[in-house]
């Protein structure tokens, strides 16, 4: 009798599961939703991480980066002599204005030098198309793929750059990718705009001669020896570069592209655990309720199995397998969906992050973890129900199940019920009979509401952020940046440019802010006392004037440095005469813009000992004169770049729209699944418990509508209670996410608008209605005779 075969008990398992397939499917779907997110986030995390590590390694991305004003090439030998340093690569790096054929607005370009012979020692590029530059031809460049693709260029096409006052034609010889520009963003912007920002590599000699850098460099990258401390290397490097206008070296982790990627990876990882945990918790609860009911129905069978000699362990395992089977189905479905969504997500990443090949891959680790978490959630959900079933003494097989106990209940003692019709009394009593279960159902539906609200509110918040940034804070049309800081007379020249209506100066000074052991390299922004164009706003949209003296810090920076108004920070200026000053923190502003430090422009000038220099200007311009202005600026050698607000806004919205669509669909779909799963399950359990009673009522002459009201009324009450609970939960969850995921780039204030609440409620109600209708169909087919024949 030891032949391998399906035992009778397993056959019972399969048939019982089939009999409750609707509920099993609903539970499996909730689990699948959680697993899908887990797989999607974590497989993307792994794919990105794997690709990133390999790419950095293959292309020899540097460990330390530094820029400076100008140092003689012979300094390189001294840098190489720093004990921690394994390799040194010096470069010439300059930002220029580009004139792109067929593109009226001026774009920004960054030019990086390539060594005269061979490949760069560090930060090597990957040639994607075309060929390497010919050292004999100074006009040839390698261009970043993102820029080339955004404009539809092919090797051989040209762009014009304003190089040190002269317009130079650059021929794109090859198209490349660089580990330094996986994520390439124009300095000062929030989101990449590949049409307006391009990176180019050209021969060192050609670049150096155009910028008076022959025999010198203004950028250096280091590779460190294995195990060497970056802090020590950076300190030594900063000391050596200081006489040459060093702007403070940064470790690889703080390099813009690396840092953005790291932030994204961190977020993927946290979302990958937090969101699925909510889904799995709800699934565990639903499973608990469904299984408890199914086991109650099998009470006599369980007792009989035990009377026949099945042990507690065997009976418990049999029923636990129900849960495990549902969870396995959910996990497999979820893994499949997660792989599919993960593939779509990697597609989005491929637009943001430029890797030679970013391929999607699901590792065994993630797959097995997904399965493991689902099974664990299933065991957690089933445990109590199974334990209760196992405790049924075998002698119970001899007795029918006792009728459910009802009490007069709170509502009745409060006299509330007397005025209600009988159907409503039945609803209230049934909810009161199992308050814990009703509460859990409410919590389950509410969690769907919460998840939805967070999604909708996040979209809202992005919209608010955009409105605030682009309409209320940045009221200028154009931001103009000079190549070098200039005297106040430059403003008059700017005011005479075509179409310029209003000019407001800005001075941006690179500096390191230090308080004790905490420090941040950043730019201090000098603005006029009462800015009218580029304003500093708090989250409520209140404008902040510049303090007469001292710094105005964004609250994120104040937190990062652990300072309060009245404290003193050390400002180490990283250009010009590089003074080091103690400056009072005059105030902080609760804004949306990450790490920011502001000063009144005159006070800033005094601080650096330069008087009234400006590094750029905010302009209000007449739209009709745009083309004339653009054409004029493209030819101005002193202008490094022109940022056009409308263009920024457009590209921001375009990028966002793509992501948002995917997010909304996923959000509504997944939260809908939760709401549907919880409500449908509550309905089925209620129907199963009360089919006898409802059929009896039909026999007594109640109409289908009347008995439907009893059952669906209960669901309506649960859903109604869950709606506000979901709103509260969502606000809490959103607040947690907003605080937990605030990065130093910018932060998204969490604010749920009324429309967000309304959409949440509507979605939950729709999901509840669908599940209610599904159960209502069963009520219509209630077999009165058969139901009444059942005993107990």
């Amino acid at each position, binding site marked *: 009798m030891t032949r391998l075969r399906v035992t009778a008990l397993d056959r019972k398992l399969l048939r019982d599961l089939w009999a409750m397939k609707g509920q099993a499917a609903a539970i499996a779907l909730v689990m699948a939703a959680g697993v899908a997110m887990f797989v999607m986030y974590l497989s993307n995390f792994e794919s990105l991480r794997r690709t990133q590590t390999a790419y950095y390694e293959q292309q020899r991305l540097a460990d330390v980066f530094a820029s400076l004003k100008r140092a003689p090439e012979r300094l390189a030998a001294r840098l190489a002599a720093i004990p921690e340093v394994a390799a040194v690569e010096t470069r010439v790096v300059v930002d220029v204005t580009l004139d792109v054929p067929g593109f009226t607005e001026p774009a920004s370009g960054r030019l990086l030098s390539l060594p005269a012979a061979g490949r760069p020692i560090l930060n090597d590029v990957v040639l994607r198309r075309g060929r390497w530059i010919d050292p004999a031809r100074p006009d040839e460049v390698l261009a970043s793929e993102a820029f080339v693709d955004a404009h539809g260029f092919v090797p051989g096409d040209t762009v014009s750059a304003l190089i040190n006052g002269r317009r130079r034609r650059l021929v794109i010889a090859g198209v490349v990718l660089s580990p330094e520009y996986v994520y390439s963003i124009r300095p000062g912007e929030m989101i990449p705009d590949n049409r307006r920002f391009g990176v180019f590599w050209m021969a060192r000699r050609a670049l150096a001669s155009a910028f008076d850098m022959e025999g010198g460099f203004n950028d250096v990258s280091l590779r460190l020896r294995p195990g060497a401390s970056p802090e020590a290397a950076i300190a030594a490097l900063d000391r050596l570069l200081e006489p040459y206008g060093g702007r403070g070296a940064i470790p690889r982790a703080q390099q813009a592209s690396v840092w953005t990627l790291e932030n994204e990876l961190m977020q993927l990882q946290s979302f990958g655990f937090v969101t699925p945990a909510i889904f799995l918790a709800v699934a565990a609860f639903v499973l608990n309720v469904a299984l408890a009911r199914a086991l109650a129905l099998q009470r006599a069978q369980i007792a009989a199995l035990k*009377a*026949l*000699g*099945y042990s507690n362990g065997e009976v418990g395992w049999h029923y636990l397998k129900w849960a495990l089977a549902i969870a396995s189905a959910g996990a497999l479905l979820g893994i499949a969906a997660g792989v599919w969504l993960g593939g779509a997500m990697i597609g989005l990443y491929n637009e943001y992050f430029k890797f030679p090949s970013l391929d999607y891959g699901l590792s065994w680790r993630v797959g097995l973890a997904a399965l493991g978490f689902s099974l664990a959630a299933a065991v957690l959900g089933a445990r109590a129900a199974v334990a209760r079933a196992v405790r049924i*003494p075998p002698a119970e*097989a001899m007795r029918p199940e006792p009728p459910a106990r009802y009490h007069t209940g709170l509502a009745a003692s409060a006299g509330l019920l007397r005025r209600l019709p009988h159907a409503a009394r039945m609803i209230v009593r049934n909810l009161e009979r199992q308050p814990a279960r009703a509460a859990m159902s409410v919590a389950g539906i509410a969690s769907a509401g919460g998840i939805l609200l967070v999604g909708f509110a996040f979209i809202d918040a992005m919209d608010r952020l955009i409105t605030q940034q682009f309409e209320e804070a940045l009221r200028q049309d154009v931001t103009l940046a000079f190549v070098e800081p200039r005297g106040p007379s430059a403003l008059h020249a700017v005011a005479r440019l075509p179409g310029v209506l209003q000019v407001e100066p800005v001075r941006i000074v690179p500096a390191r802010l230090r308080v004790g052991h905490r420090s941040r390299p950043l730019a201090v922004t000098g603005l006029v006392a009462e800015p009218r164009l580029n304003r500093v706003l708090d989250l409520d949209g209140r404008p902040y004037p510049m303090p007469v003296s001292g710094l105005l810090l964004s609250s994120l920076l104040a937190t990062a440095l652990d300072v309060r108004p009245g404290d003193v920070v050390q400002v180490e200026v990283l250009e010009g005469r590089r003074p080091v000053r103690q400056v009072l923190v005059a105030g902080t502003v609760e804004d949306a813009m990450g790490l920011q430090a502001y000063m009144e422009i005159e006070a800033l000038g005094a601080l650096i000992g330069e008087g009234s220099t400006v590094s750029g200007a905010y302009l209000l311009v007449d739209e009709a004169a745009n083309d004339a202005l653009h054409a004029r600026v493209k030819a101005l050698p002193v202008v490094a770049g022109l940022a056009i607000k409308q263009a920024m806004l457009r590209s921001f919205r375009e990028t966002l729209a793509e992501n948002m669509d995917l997010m909304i669909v996923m959000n509504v779909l997944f939260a809908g699944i939760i709401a549907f799963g919880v409500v449908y399950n509550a309905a089925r359990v209620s129907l199963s418990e009360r089919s006898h009673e409802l059929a009896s009522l039909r026999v007594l002459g109640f109409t289908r509508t009347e008995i439907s009201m009893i059952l669906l009324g209960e669901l309506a009450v649960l859903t109604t209670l869950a709606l506000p609970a979901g709103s509260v939960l969502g606000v809490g969850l959103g607040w947690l996410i907003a605080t937990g995921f605030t990065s130093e780039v910018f932060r998204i204030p969490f604010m749920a608008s009324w429309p967000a609440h309304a959409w949440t409620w509507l979605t939950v109600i729709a999901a509840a209605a669908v599940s209610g209708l599904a159960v209502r169909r069963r009520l219509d087919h209630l077999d009165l005779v058969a139901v009444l024949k059942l005993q107990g």
Partner: protein
Amino acid sequence: MPAADRETVERALVFDARGLTKVYAMGDVPVHALRGIDFDLRASEFVVLLGPSGSGKSTLLNILGGLDTPTAGQVLYEGEDLARADDAALTEYRRRHVGFVFQFYNLSPSLTARENVALVTEIADDPMAPDEALRLVGLEHRLDHFPAQLSGGEQQRVAIARAIAKRPAVLLCDEPTGALDITTGIVVLEAIARVNDELGTATVVITHNAAIAAMADRVVRLADGRIAGVERHESRQRAAELVW
């Protein structure tokens, strides 16, 4: 087998229960279900327990079957005291030695007749084949039917097949015909009698139908937790001859 022969054969003792007492606590009120009962059962004996509701007959059967333990007293089965056995030992005891037949059949509705029997044969040491057990109760033509496709009497016969398929030493039946009409009840009782005859399984049947008592070797009457009387039958009536 003539009654005289049955008397002369010294049959082995299956159960030897002494001073069985069972007290349930119903809230604060103790309920005495059994008040010191002595009961024995010999191999291949057919005993009917008669008594009104609450007389203690179900409690006695549950204790004999290892579903419940007495508050005081001892039940020796093959020299082991079931009153002192732990849960695992009782499970093992039920698994190897006892066959149960319940008033409401308690079949698994999602399993066919054959599979319901297999549920037991799969965990027994030396079972008969499910088909054979079902043939013994006259259901060889209903092997692949689900409980819902069987009449009440047929369901109860499946339950009997399920109980005897493990070749138990003792067959315990709690109101096996309680939910059945006369004709069907007789068929079920015939099945039980046949098992008792052909396999020699010691059988205890609970009923409050005095007519069934005529089938038994011995009738034990219970009332209020005590044995109110015992009668022995020289000859047993066949189920078909019963009148009720």
